[in-house]
């Protein structure tokens, strides 16, 4: 599946949804600082990888998918939940990149400039996350091709509901 930019999702978000994300992000960042101040950097550091935005993002995805289906006169409750689950699966893959980010900052910060380390670590996060995502996509394709050779060639994909369930929600 190809990665692409799509601005249509922006129209679904309302102003207060951006405010919710801002407040969530700001609160967790402030909290990480307070915890570090009170209990030290070893405990405070844990919260640098706190899943701050995931609950809010997943809830919004569920809501948007549900609204889309309701506009078509359908019940989108289950679709909304599965789509949020697919997003969370992406976050699990991204967390591997987050580990790489933390490792680089930990090992390189003492002897390098802060801006250089943060830039390098952020690029490494993106590269590692994308590699894990690409690896999973390749594995998925190969497994599907083995289980359902016809659907992997674009033939009667709809006749393979089990194999294409995840794919239908990953759009």
């Amino acid at each position: 599946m190809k990665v692409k930019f799509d601005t249509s999702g922006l129209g679904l978000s309302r102003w207060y949804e951006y405010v919710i994300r801002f407040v969530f992000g700001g609160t967790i960042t402030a909290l990480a600082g307070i915890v570090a101040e009170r209990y030290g950097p070893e405990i405070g550091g844990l919260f640098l990888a706190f899943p701050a935005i995931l609950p809010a993002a997943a809830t919004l995805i569920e809501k948007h998918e549900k609204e889309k289906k309701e506009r078509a006169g359908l019940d989108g409750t289950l679709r909304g939940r599965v789509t949020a689950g697919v997003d969370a699966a992406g976050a699990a893959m991204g967390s591997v990149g987050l580990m790489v980010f933390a490792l680089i900052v930990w090992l390189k910060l003492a002897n390098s400039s802060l801006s250089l380390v943060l830039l390098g670590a952020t690029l490494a996060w993106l590269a590692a996350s994308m590699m894990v995502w690409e690896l999973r996509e390749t594995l998925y394709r190969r497994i599907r091709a083995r289980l359902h050779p016809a659907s992997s060639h674009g033939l009667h994909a709809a006749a393979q509901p089990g194999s294409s369930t995840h794919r239908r929600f990953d759009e």
Partner: protein
Amino acid sequence: MKEILVRFVVGGVVVSVFALLGDLLKPKSFAGLFGAAPSVALATLVLTVSKRGKEYAGLEARSMLIGAIAFFFYALVVSRLLIRRKVPVLPVTGLSMAVWFACAFGCWYAMLR
């Protein structure tokens, strides 16, 4: 108080930018990568280094590694429950935080304490 406010604003902006990037990308599994963006870390580390120095920030980054492992298990549990069991999102994402806390503090206790 001023420092907390600065952290709140900077953190809010950085998290929002990464969330917006995720909104603009498809497929959903790829956009989800941005749910694990180092947004809180980016906002925090700049302020921490300027106030406490690199050694202190390095210790935070070491613990962040454990937090990221906990994040992996949290996101994995949430995605499995939502995709396979199709349970409501808010309780799942909220209650599964116990997984993050257990994993993060368990690993911290075992490895760093």
